Protein backbone atom coordinates (compact mmCIF):
# COMPACT_ATOMS: atom_id res chain seq x y z
CA UNK A 1 0.00 0.00 0.00
CA UNK A 2 0.98 3.60 -0.50
CA UNK A 3 1.64 5.94 2.41
CA UNK A 4 1.74 9.72 2.41
CA UNK A 5 3.88 11.42 5.04
CA UNK A 6 3.58 15.14 5.81
CA UNK A 7 6.83 16.81 6.83
CA UNK A 8 7.10 20.33 8.13
CA UNK A 9 10.15 22.59 8.15
CA UNK A 10 10.50 24.16 11.58
CA UNK A 11 13.08 25.83 13.79
CA UNK A 12 15.39 23.19 15.26
CA UNK A 13 14.15 22.09 18.68
CA UNK A 14 17.39 23.13 20.36
CA UNK A 15 16.95 26.76 19.38
CA UNK A 16 15.33 29.07 21.88
CA UNK A 17 13.46 31.53 19.69
CA UNK A 18 12.67 35.10 20.63
CA UNK A 19 10.07 37.53 19.42
CA UNK A 20 11.35 40.51 17.42
CA UNK A 21 11.48 43.63 19.54
CA UNK A 22 8.66 45.26 17.55
CA UNK A 23 6.41 42.28 18.24
CA UNK A 24 5.62 41.62 14.58
CA UNK A 25 6.97 38.13 14.51
CA UNK A 26 9.59 35.71 15.66
CA UNK A 27 13.24 36.37 14.90
CA UNK A 28 14.21 33.59 12.51
CA UNK A 29 17.29 35.19 11.01
CA UNK A 30 20.12 32.67 10.70
CA UNK A 31 18.27 30.21 12.86
CA UNK A 32 18.90 26.52 12.27
CA UNK A 33 15.94 24.82 10.58
CA UNK A 34 15.07 21.12 10.63
CA UNK A 35 12.30 18.60 10.08
CA UNK A 36 9.72 18.79 12.86
CA UNK A 37 10.74 15.96 15.26
CA UNK A 38 7.26 14.40 15.14
CA UNK A 39 7.45 14.33 11.33
CA UNK A 40 10.77 12.50 11.54
CA UNK A 41 8.99 9.89 13.61
CA UNK A 42 6.27 9.77 10.94
CA UNK A 43 8.83 9.03 8.20
CA UNK A 44 10.53 6.42 10.34
CA UNK A 45 7.23 4.63 10.92
CA UNK A 46 6.48 4.60 7.20
CA UNK A 47 9.96 3.25 6.46
CA UNK A 48 9.58 0.51 9.07
CA UNK A 49 6.23 -0.48 7.56
CA UNK A 50 7.96 -0.67 4.19
CA UNK A 51 10.75 -2.80 5.62
CA UNK A 52 8.07 -5.15 6.99
CA UNK A 53 6.58 -5.43 3.50
CA UNK A 54 3.32 -3.71 4.48
CA UNK A 55 4.03 -0.51 2.59
CA UNK A 56 5.16 -0.38 -1.01
CA UNK A 57 5.63 3.33 -1.63
CA UNK A 58 6.25 6.35 0.60
CA UNK A 59 5.48 9.85 -0.65
CA UNK A 60 6.75 12.79 1.44
CA UNK A 61 4.83 16.05 1.16
CA UNK A 62 5.78 19.44 2.49
CA UNK A 63 4.01 22.76 2.19
CA UNK A 64 5.88 26.03 2.27
CA UNK A 65 8.62 28.00 0.58
CA UNK A 66 11.11 26.52 -1.89
CA UNK A 67 13.60 25.83 0.91
CA UNK A 68 11.27 23.12 2.25
CA UNK A 69 12.91 20.97 -0.44
CA UNK A 70 15.69 20.46 2.11
CA UNK A 71 13.31 18.69 4.47
CA UNK A 72 11.83 16.64 1.65
CA UNK A 73 15.37 15.59 0.64
CA UNK A 74 15.99 14.54 4.22
CA UNK A 75 12.80 12.48 4.13
CA UNK A 76 13.99 10.91 0.87
CA UNK A 77 17.35 10.14 2.45
CA UNK A 78 15.57 8.46 5.36
CA UNK A 79 13.69 6.17 2.98
CA UNK A 80 10.81 7.98 1.30
CA UNK A 81 10.52 7.16 -2.41
CA UNK A 82 9.46 10.49 -3.84
CA UNK A 83 8.57 13.97 -2.75
CA UNK A 84 5.94 16.61 -3.39
CA UNK A 85 6.43 20.26 -2.54
CA UNK A 86 3.37 22.47 -2.48
CA UNK A 87 5.15 25.73 -2.92
CA UNK A 88 3.83 28.93 -1.36
CA UNK A 89 5.32 31.88 0.45
CA UNK A 90 2.14 32.49 2.43
CA UNK A 91 2.15 31.33 6.09
CA UNK A 92 -0.33 28.54 5.63
CA UNK A 93 -2.54 27.70 8.61
CA UNK A 94 -3.62 24.17 9.64
CA UNK A 95 -7.04 24.21 7.94
CA UNK A 96 -5.46 25.29 4.65
CA UNK A 97 -2.62 22.76 5.08
CA UNK A 98 -5.26 20.09 5.61
CA UNK A 99 -7.09 21.19 2.45
CA UNK A 100 -3.86 21.09 0.44
CA UNK A 101 -3.03 17.66 1.82
CA UNK A 102 -6.56 16.50 0.95
CA UNK A 103 -6.00 17.62 -2.64
CA UNK A 104 -2.78 15.58 -2.71
CA UNK A 105 -4.60 12.62 -1.14
CA UNK A 106 -7.26 12.81 -3.86
CA UNK A 107 -4.54 12.49 -6.50
CA UNK A 108 -2.34 9.92 -4.80
CA UNK A 109 -5.00 7.83 -3.05
CA UNK A 110 -2.78 6.57 -0.23
CA UNK A 111 -4.09 3.97 2.23
CA UNK A 112 -2.59 5.84 5.13
CA UNK A 113 -1.40 9.36 5.85
CA UNK A 114 1.09 9.79 8.69
CA UNK A 115 1.66 13.22 10.24
CA UNK A 116 3.31 14.52 13.38
CA UNK A 117 0.88 15.10 16.23
CA UNK A 118 2.10 18.66 16.54
CA UNK A 119 4.59 21.01 15.00
CA UNK A 120 6.99 22.41 17.59
CA UNK A 121 6.68 25.97 16.26
CA UNK A 122 2.92 26.52 15.93
CA UNK A 123 2.13 23.88 18.59
CA UNK A 124 -1.34 23.63 17.05
CA UNK A 125 -1.93 19.88 17.10
CA UNK A 126 -4.72 20.12 14.49
CA UNK A 127 -3.60 19.27 10.97
CA UNK A 128 -4.01 15.48 11.05
CA UNK A 129 -7.45 15.64 12.65
CA UNK A 130 -8.57 18.24 10.08
CA UNK A 131 -7.26 16.17 7.19
CA UNK A 132 -9.15 13.16 8.54
CA UNK A 133 -12.35 15.22 8.70
CA UNK A 134 -11.97 16.53 5.15
CA UNK A 135 -11.19 13.12 3.65
CA UNK A 136 -13.68 11.25 5.86
CA UNK A 137 -10.84 9.00 6.99
CA UNK A 138 -10.64 7.46 10.44
CA UNK A 139 -7.97 8.87 12.74
CA UNK A 140 -5.45 7.47 15.18
CA UNK A 141 -3.90 10.46 16.91
CA UNK A 142 -0.93 10.54 19.32
CA UNK A 143 0.13 7.05 18.25
CA UNK A 144 2.65 4.99 20.19
CA UNK A 145 2.05 1.78 18.22
CA UNK A 146 0.75 1.15 14.72
CA UNK A 147 -0.14 -2.35 13.50
CA UNK A 148 -1.57 -2.87 10.03
CA UNK A 149 -3.66 -6.00 9.46
CA UNK A 150 -5.44 -6.40 6.14
CA UNK A 151 -7.82 -3.50 5.68
CA UNK A 152 -7.46 -2.18 9.21
CA UNK A 153 -4.86 -0.53 11.36
CA UNK A 154 -4.77 -0.88 15.13
CA UNK A 155 -3.38 2.20 16.82
CA UNK A 156 -2.34 2.56 20.44
CA UNK A 157 -2.85 6.18 21.46
CA UNK A 158 -1.23 8.11 24.29
CA UNK A 159 -4.08 9.72 26.23
CA UNK A 160 -4.25 11.69 29.48
CA UNK A 161 -5.38 8.69 31.48
CA UNK A 162 -2.85 6.21 30.06
CA UNK A 163 -3.30 4.55 26.70
CA UNK A 164 -6.19 3.70 24.41
CA UNK A 165 -6.31 1.20 21.58
CA UNK A 166 -8.56 1.81 18.57
CA UNK A 167 -9.10 -0.19 15.41
CA UNK A 168 -9.48 1.87 12.25
CA UNK A 169 -10.66 0.99 8.77
CA UNK A 170 -8.20 1.99 6.06
CA UNK A 171 -7.66 4.53 4.65
CA UNK A 172 -6.70 6.23 7.90
CA UNK A 173 -4.82 9.22 9.25
CA UNK A 174 -2.22 8.53 11.93
CA UNK A 175 -0.44 11.22 13.97
CA UNK A 176 2.73 10.31 15.79
CA UNK A 177 3.65 10.69 19.44
CA UNK A 178 7.22 10.68 20.72
CA UNK A 179 7.44 7.05 21.69
CA UNK A 180 6.23 5.52 18.44
CA UNK A 181 9.82 4.87 17.38
CA UNK A 182 13.33 6.27 17.42
CA UNK A 183 14.19 7.73 14.03
CA UNK A 184 17.39 6.61 12.33
CA UNK A 185 20.03 8.91 10.94
CA UNK A 186 20.40 9.28 7.22
CA UNK A 187 23.58 7.62 5.92
CA UNK A 188 25.83 9.45 3.47
CA UNK A 189 25.12 7.06 0.56
CA UNK A 190 21.40 7.49 1.19
CA UNK A 191 21.76 11.27 1.24
CA UNK A 192 23.48 11.02 -2.16
CA UNK A 193 20.81 8.68 -3.50
CA UNK A 194 18.07 11.02 -2.26
CA UNK A 195 19.30 13.72 -4.61
CA UNK A 196 18.21 11.59 -7.56
CA UNK A 197 14.77 10.68 -6.25
CA UNK A 198 11.84 12.48 -7.92
CA UNK A 199 10.50 15.65 -6.34
CA UNK A 200 7.42 17.30 -7.88
CA UNK A 201 6.48 20.87 -7.23
CA UNK A 202 2.97 22.29 -7.41
CA UNK A 203 1.17 25.33 -6.07
CA UNK A 204 -2.02 25.84 -4.05
CA UNK A 205 -3.54 27.28 -7.25
CA UNK A 206 -2.72 24.06 -9.13
CA UNK A 207 -4.59 22.20 -6.40
CA UNK A 208 -7.45 24.68 -6.39
CA UNK A 209 -7.17 25.47 -2.70
CA UNK A 210 -7.78 28.88 -1.13
CA UNK A 211 -5.16 29.36 1.58
CA UNK A 212 -6.35 32.72 2.89
CA UNK A 213 -5.61 32.83 6.64
CA UNK A 214 -8.60 32.79 9.01
CA UNK A 215 -6.53 33.81 11.97
CA UNK A 216 -4.30 36.88 12.09
CA UNK A 217 -1.39 37.18 14.45
CA UNK A 218 -1.64 40.71 15.88
CA UNK A 219 1.54 40.55 17.90
CA UNK A 220 4.00 38.23 19.56
CA UNK A 221 5.75 38.85 22.85
CA UNK A 222 7.96 37.01 25.29
CA UNK A 223 6.21 35.24 28.17
CA UNK A 224 6.36 36.80 31.62
CA UNK A 225 9.93 36.19 32.78
CA UNK A 226 10.38 34.15 35.89
CA UNK A 227 12.94 35.54 38.27
CA UNK A 228 15.50 33.01 39.40
CA UNK A 229 15.16 32.57 43.13
CA UNK A 230 17.75 31.64 45.69
CA UNK A 231 19.88 28.61 46.43
CA UNK A 232 19.25 27.06 49.80
CA UNK A 233 22.11 25.52 51.76
CA UNK A 234 20.43 22.34 52.87
CA UNK A 235 17.19 20.44 53.27
CA UNK A 236 16.42 22.12 56.60
CA UNK A 237 16.55 25.57 55.04
CA UNK A 238 14.40 24.36 52.12
CA UNK A 239 11.71 23.05 54.46
CA UNK A 240 11.82 26.28 56.48
CA UNK A 241 11.41 28.42 53.35
CA UNK A 242 8.54 26.31 52.01
CA UNK A 243 6.74 26.44 55.35
CA UNK A 244 7.37 30.00 56.47
CA UNK A 245 8.21 32.08 53.41
CA UNK A 246 6.31 30.51 50.50
CA UNK A 247 3.74 28.91 52.84
CA UNK A 248 3.06 26.10 50.37
CA UNK A 249 3.44 23.10 52.67
Amino acid sequence: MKVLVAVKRVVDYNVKVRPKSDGTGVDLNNVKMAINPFCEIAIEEAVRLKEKGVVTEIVAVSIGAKVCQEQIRTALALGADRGILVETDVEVQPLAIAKLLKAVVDKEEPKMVILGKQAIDGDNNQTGQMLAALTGMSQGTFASEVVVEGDTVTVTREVDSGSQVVKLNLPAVVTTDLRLNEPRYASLPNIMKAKKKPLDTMTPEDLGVDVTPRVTTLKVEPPAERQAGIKVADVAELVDKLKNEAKVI
Partner: protein
Amino acid sequence: MSILILAEHDNASIKGATLNTVAAAKAIGGDITVLVAGEACGAAAEAAAKIEGVSKVLVADNAAYGHQLAENVSLLVAELGKDYAYILAPATTNGKNTLPRAAALLDVAQISEIISVESADTFKRPIYAGNVIATVQSSDAIKVITVRTTAFDAVAAEGGSASVEAVASAHDAGNSSYVREEVAKSDRPELTAASIVVSGGRGMQNGDNFAMLYSLADKLGAAVGASRAAVDAGFVPNDMQVGQTGKIVAPGLYIAVGISGAIQHLAGMKDSKVIVAINKDEDAPIFQVADYGLVADLFDAVPELDSSL
Protein backbone atom coordinates in the same frame (compact mmCIF):
# COMPACT_ATOMS: atom_id res chain seq x y z
CA MET B 1 -23.56 35.30 22.05
CA SER B 2 -23.88 31.58 22.52
CA ILE B 3 -21.13 29.20 23.56
CA LEU B 4 -21.10 25.41 23.25
CA ILE B 5 -18.67 23.50 25.45
CA LEU B 6 -17.73 19.88 24.77
CA ALA B 7 -17.55 18.39 28.27
CA GLU B 8 -14.65 16.27 29.50
CA HIS B 9 -16.27 13.40 31.37
CA ASP B 10 -16.18 9.66 31.94
CA ASN B 11 -19.96 9.06 31.68
CA ALA B 12 -20.23 8.91 35.48
CA SER B 13 -18.74 12.29 36.38
CA ILE B 14 -17.55 15.58 34.99
CA LYS B 15 -13.78 16.13 34.90
CA GLY B 16 -12.20 19.21 36.40
CA ALA B 17 -10.97 20.40 33.00
CA THR B 18 -14.59 21.18 32.10
CA LEU B 19 -14.75 23.69 34.97
CA ASN B 20 -11.71 25.57 33.66
CA THR B 21 -13.27 25.61 30.20
CA VAL B 22 -16.49 27.10 31.59
CA ALA B 23 -14.31 29.78 33.21
CA ALA B 24 -12.84 30.62 29.78
CA ALA B 25 -16.38 30.76 28.35
CA LYS B 26 -17.37 33.20 31.10
CA ALA B 27 -14.39 35.35 30.17
CA ILE B 28 -15.74 35.46 26.60
CA GLY B 29 -19.23 36.15 27.93
CA GLY B 30 -22.51 34.68 26.70
CA ASP B 31 -25.00 31.96 27.17
CA ILE B 32 -23.21 28.72 28.04
CA THR B 33 -24.39 25.28 26.89
CA VAL B 34 -22.49 22.13 27.86
CA LEU B 35 -22.64 19.08 25.60
CA VAL B 36 -22.21 15.70 27.29
CA ALA B 37 -21.70 13.09 24.57
CA GLY B 38 -21.35 9.56 25.90
CA GLU B 39 -23.17 6.37 26.70
CA ALA B 40 -25.15 5.93 29.92
CA CYS B 41 -23.90 9.37 30.80
CA GLY B 42 -26.92 10.63 32.73
CA ALA B 43 -24.91 11.09 35.92
CA ALA B 44 -22.32 13.20 34.12
CA ALA B 45 -25.09 15.31 32.58
CA GLU B 46 -26.67 15.90 35.99
CA ALA B 47 -23.31 16.98 37.36
CA ALA B 48 -22.85 19.32 34.39
CA ALA B 49 -26.20 20.95 35.15
CA LYS B 50 -24.88 21.99 38.57
CA ILE B 51 -21.83 23.82 37.24
CA GLU B 52 -21.82 27.51 38.04
CA GLY B 53 -22.70 29.67 35.04
CA VAL B 54 -24.07 26.93 32.76
CA SER B 55 -27.58 27.57 31.43
CA LYS B 56 -28.23 24.44 29.41
CA VAL B 57 -26.91 20.88 29.19
CA LEU B 58 -27.33 18.82 26.03
CA VAL B 59 -27.04 15.07 26.53
CA ALA B 60 -26.27 12.84 23.59
CA ASP B 61 -26.54 9.39 25.10
CA ASN B 62 -25.78 6.79 22.48
CA ALA B 63 -23.57 3.74 21.97
CA ALA B 64 -21.81 5.60 19.13
CA TYR B 65 -20.44 8.10 21.66
CA GLY B 66 -19.57 5.55 24.34
CA HIS B 67 -15.82 5.88 24.00
CA GLN B 68 -15.99 9.38 22.57
CA LEU B 69 -14.43 8.36 19.27
CA ALA B 70 -13.50 11.52 17.37
CA GLU B 71 -15.01 10.24 14.10
CA ASN B 72 -18.47 10.13 15.70
CA VAL B 73 -18.40 12.95 18.26
CA SER B 74 -17.02 15.46 15.74
CA LEU B 75 -20.08 14.88 13.52
CA LEU B 76 -22.34 15.63 16.48
CA VAL B 77 -20.36 18.73 17.47
CA ALA B 78 -20.42 20.00 13.89
CA GLU B 79 -24.17 19.45 13.67
CA LEU B 80 -25.03 21.16 16.96
CA GLY B 81 -22.22 23.69 16.77
CA LYS B 82 -23.37 25.51 13.67
CA ASP B 83 -25.95 27.33 15.80
CA TYR B 84 -23.32 28.71 18.17
CA ALA B 85 -20.83 31.56 17.98
CA TYR B 86 -18.17 29.63 19.92
CA ILE B 87 -17.31 26.00 20.42
CA LEU B 88 -14.90 25.26 23.26
CA ALA B 89 -13.21 22.20 24.70
CA PRO B 90 -10.39 21.75 27.18
CA ALA B 91 -6.99 21.04 25.60
CA THR B 92 -6.99 17.50 26.94
CA THR B 93 -6.11 14.57 24.68
CA ASN B 94 -9.86 14.17 24.15
CA GLY B 95 -10.44 17.80 23.22
CA LYS B 96 -7.37 17.84 20.98
CA ASN B 97 -8.53 14.68 19.24
CA THR B 98 -12.09 15.74 18.50
CA LEU B 99 -12.29 19.51 18.19
CA PRO B 100 -10.01 20.09 15.14
CA ARG B 101 -12.01 17.43 13.32
CA ALA B 102 -15.25 19.28 14.12
CA ALA B 103 -13.68 22.61 13.10
CA ALA B 104 -12.69 21.25 9.70
CA LEU B 105 -16.20 19.86 9.17
CA LEU B 106 -17.50 23.40 9.82
CA ASP B 107 -14.79 24.85 7.55
CA VAL B 108 -13.40 27.08 10.29
CA ALA B 109 -9.99 27.36 11.93
CA GLN B 110 -9.26 26.20 15.44
CA ILE B 111 -7.42 28.35 17.92
CA SER B 112 -5.43 25.95 20.10
CA GLU B 113 -4.72 26.25 23.81
CA ILE B 114 -5.74 29.81 24.56
CA ILE B 115 -4.36 31.26 27.79
CA SER B 116 -6.40 34.46 27.81
CA VAL B 117 -9.41 36.15 26.25
CA GLU B 118 -8.54 39.65 25.01
CA SER B 119 -11.84 40.41 23.31
CA ALA B 120 -14.68 38.61 21.52
CA ASP B 121 -12.38 37.58 18.66
CA THR B 122 -8.87 37.96 20.06
CA PHE B 123 -7.00 35.51 22.23
CA LYS B 124 -3.50 34.80 23.53
CA ARG B 125 -1.82 31.45 23.02
CA PRO B 126 1.68 30.12 23.56
CA ILE B 127 3.78 28.99 20.59
CA TYR B 128 7.36 27.65 20.34
CA ALA B 129 7.07 25.66 23.59
CA GLY B 130 5.85 28.72 25.44
CA ASN B 131 8.88 30.84 24.50
CA VAL B 132 6.60 33.17 22.58
CA ILE B 133 3.07 34.34 23.34
CA ALA B 134 1.02 35.18 20.26
CA THR B 135 -2.05 37.41 20.25
CA VAL B 136 -4.33 36.08 17.51
CA GLN B 137 -7.55 37.34 16.00
CA SER B 138 -10.09 35.08 14.35
CA SER B 139 -12.20 36.10 11.38
CA ASP B 140 -14.35 32.98 11.36
CA ALA B 141 -18.09 33.18 12.12
CA ILE B 142 -17.82 30.23 14.48
CA LYS B 143 -14.81 30.34 16.75
CA VAL B 144 -13.53 26.90 17.66
CA ILE B 145 -11.16 27.03 20.60
CA THR B 146 -9.32 24.68 22.93
CA VAL B 147 -8.53 26.01 26.37
CA ARG B 148 -5.31 25.56 28.33
CA THR B 149 -6.92 24.62 31.62
CA THR B 150 -4.09 25.86 33.86
CA ALA B 151 -4.64 29.41 32.61
CA PHE B 152 -8.23 29.69 33.83
CA ASP B 153 -9.33 29.22 37.47
CA ALA B 154 -12.06 26.58 37.69
CA VAL B 155 -15.63 27.74 38.30
CA ALA B 156 -17.59 26.09 41.11
CA ALA B 157 -18.85 22.58 40.39
CA GLU B 158 -21.99 23.26 42.40
CA GLY B 159 -24.57 26.00 42.58
CA GLY B 160 -25.90 26.07 39.02
CA SER B 161 -29.25 24.73 37.89
CA ALA B 162 -29.15 24.32 34.13
CA SER B 163 -31.90 22.67 32.16
CA VAL B 164 -31.06 19.25 30.72
CA GLU B 165 -32.15 18.38 27.20
CA ALA B 166 -31.67 15.11 25.35
CA VAL B 167 -30.23 15.16 21.83
CA ALA B 168 -31.53 12.37 19.67
CA SER B 169 -29.15 12.42 16.74
CA ALA B 170 -26.79 9.47 16.58
CA HIS B 171 -23.77 9.79 14.32
CA ASP B 172 -21.82 6.65 13.68
CA ALA B 173 -19.14 7.16 11.03
CA GLY B 174 -18.64 3.42 11.10
CA ASN B 175 -14.91 3.54 10.33
CA SER B 176 -13.38 3.13 13.77
CA SER B 177 -13.93 1.13 16.91
CA TYR B 178 -12.69 1.09 20.47
CA VAL B 179 -10.60 -1.89 21.49
CA ARG B 180 -9.37 -1.24 25.03
CA GLU B 181 -7.91 1.24 27.40
CA GLU B 182 -5.14 0.95 29.94
CA VAL B 183 -5.81 3.42 32.68
CA ALA B 184 -3.03 4.10 35.12
CA LYS B 185 -4.58 3.53 38.55
CA SER B 186 -3.39 5.76 41.32
CA ASP B 187 -4.69 7.00 44.64
CA ARG B 188 -2.73 10.19 44.23
CA PRO B 189 -4.31 13.35 42.87
CA GLU B 190 -4.53 13.82 39.13
CA LEU B 191 -1.38 15.42 37.73
CA THR B 192 -3.10 18.36 36.07
CA ALA B 193 -5.30 19.10 39.08
CA ALA B 194 -2.89 18.58 42.00
CA SER B 195 -1.83 21.53 44.14
CA ILE B 196 1.61 19.99 44.61
CA VAL B 197 3.57 18.02 41.99
CA VAL B 198 6.81 16.11 42.58
CA SER B 199 8.57 15.19 39.32
CA GLY B 200 11.56 13.00 38.63
CA GLY B 201 13.96 13.01 35.71
CA ARG B 202 16.78 10.95 34.30
CA GLY B 203 18.67 11.60 37.52
CA MET B 204 16.38 9.08 39.24
CA GLN B 205 18.34 6.34 37.40
CA ASN B 206 15.54 3.75 37.38
CA GLY B 207 11.87 3.11 38.02
CA ASP B 208 12.41 1.59 41.45
CA ASN B 209 13.97 4.79 42.73
CA PHE B 210 10.71 6.60 41.97
CA ALA B 211 9.45 4.94 45.20
CA MET B 212 11.28 7.76 47.00
CA LEU B 213 9.17 10.30 45.13
CA TYR B 214 5.92 8.39 45.73
CA SER B 215 6.63 8.38 49.44
CA LEU B 216 7.41 12.10 49.46
CA ALA B 217 4.33 12.81 47.35
CA ASP B 218 2.07 10.89 49.73
CA LYS B 219 3.27 12.98 52.65
CA LEU B 220 2.55 16.16 50.70
CA GLY B 221 -0.70 15.02 49.10
CA ALA B 222 1.06 15.51 45.79
CA ALA B 223 0.88 14.01 42.32
CA VAL B 224 3.99 12.54 40.70
CA GLY B 225 5.22 13.61 37.27
CA ALA B 226 8.30 12.99 35.16
CA SER B 227 10.49 14.35 32.40
CA ARG B 228 10.42 12.84 28.96
CA ALA B 229 13.83 11.30 29.56
CA ALA B 230 12.43 9.38 32.54
CA VAL B 231 9.45 8.21 30.48
CA ASP B 232 11.53 7.26 27.44
CA ALA B 233 13.89 5.29 29.66
CA GLY B 234 10.88 3.32 30.88
CA PHE B 235 11.13 4.45 34.53
CA VAL B 236 7.45 5.48 34.53
CA PRO B 237 4.45 5.44 32.14
CA ASN B 238 3.82 8.11 29.51
CA ASP B 239 0.83 9.66 31.24
CA MET B 240 3.25 11.11 33.80
CA GLN B 241 5.18 13.22 31.28
CA VAL B 242 5.18 16.93 31.97
CA GLY B 243 6.15 19.32 29.18
CA GLN B 244 5.52 20.80 25.75
CA THR B 245 4.34 17.49 24.41
CA GLY B 246 3.12 15.97 27.66
CA LYS B 247 0.92 17.49 30.31
CA ILE B 248 0.85 21.14 31.26
CA VAL B 249 0.74 21.70 35.00
CA ALA B 250 0.67 24.82 37.15
CA PRO B 251 0.45 23.71 40.78
CA GLY B 252 1.12 25.83 43.84
CA LEU B 253 4.35 23.90 44.38
CA TYR B 254 6.43 21.99 41.79
CA ILE B 255 9.42 20.00 42.99
CA ALA B 256 11.78 18.96 40.17
CA VAL B 257 14.15 16.18 41.18
CA GLY B 258 17.04 15.17 38.91
CA ILE B 259 15.60 17.18 36.01
CA SER B 260 17.93 19.43 34.01
CA GLY B 261 15.30 21.93 32.85
CA ALA B 262 15.19 21.59 29.04
CA ILE B 263 12.88 24.16 27.40
CA GLN B 264 10.46 21.41 26.46
CA HIS B 265 10.14 20.45 30.11
CA LEU B 266 9.91 24.04 31.32
CA ALA B 267 7.04 24.60 28.87
CA GLY B 268 4.96 22.25 30.97
CA MET B 269 5.62 23.60 34.45
CA LYS B 270 7.03 27.12 34.45
CA ASP B 271 3.70 28.67 35.41
CA SER B 272 3.77 26.85 38.74
CA LYS B 273 3.56 29.26 41.66
CA VAL B 274 6.60 28.02 43.55
CA ILE B 275 9.30 25.89 41.94
CA VAL B 276 11.85 23.85 43.85
CA ALA B 277 14.77 22.17 42.07
CA ILE B 278 16.98 19.48 43.50
CA ASN B 279 19.93 18.80 41.24
CA LYS B 280 23.59 17.99 41.81
CA ASP B 281 24.73 20.20 38.94
CA GLU B 282 24.72 23.80 40.10
CA ASP B 283 24.65 25.01 36.49
CA ALA B 284 21.54 23.05 35.53
CA PRO B 285 19.11 25.39 33.70
CA ILE B 286 16.28 24.35 36.02
CA PHE B 287 17.84 26.64 38.64
CA GLN B 288 17.10 29.64 36.40
CA VAL B 289 13.38 29.19 37.01
CA ALA B 290 13.50 27.75 40.54
CA ASP B 291 12.43 29.86 43.50
CA TYR B 292 14.39 27.54 45.77
CA GLY B 293 17.30 25.58 44.41
CA LEU B 294 19.11 22.89 46.33
CA VAL B 295 22.40 21.72 44.89
CA ALA B 296 22.65 18.22 46.27
CA ASP B 297 22.65 14.54 45.45
CA LEU B 298 19.00 13.61 45.23
CA PHE B 299 19.66 10.25 46.86
CA ASP B 300 20.62 12.13 50.03
CA ALA B 301 18.26 15.09 49.77
CA VAL B 302 14.98 13.34 48.96
CA PRO B 303 15.03 10.88 51.90
CA GLU B 304 16.08 13.72 54.20
CA LEU B 305 13.26 15.92 52.93
CA ASP B 306 10.82 13.05 53.33
CA SER B 307 11.81 12.41 56.94
CA SER B 308 11.69 16.07 57.89
CA LEU B 309 8.06 16.47 56.88
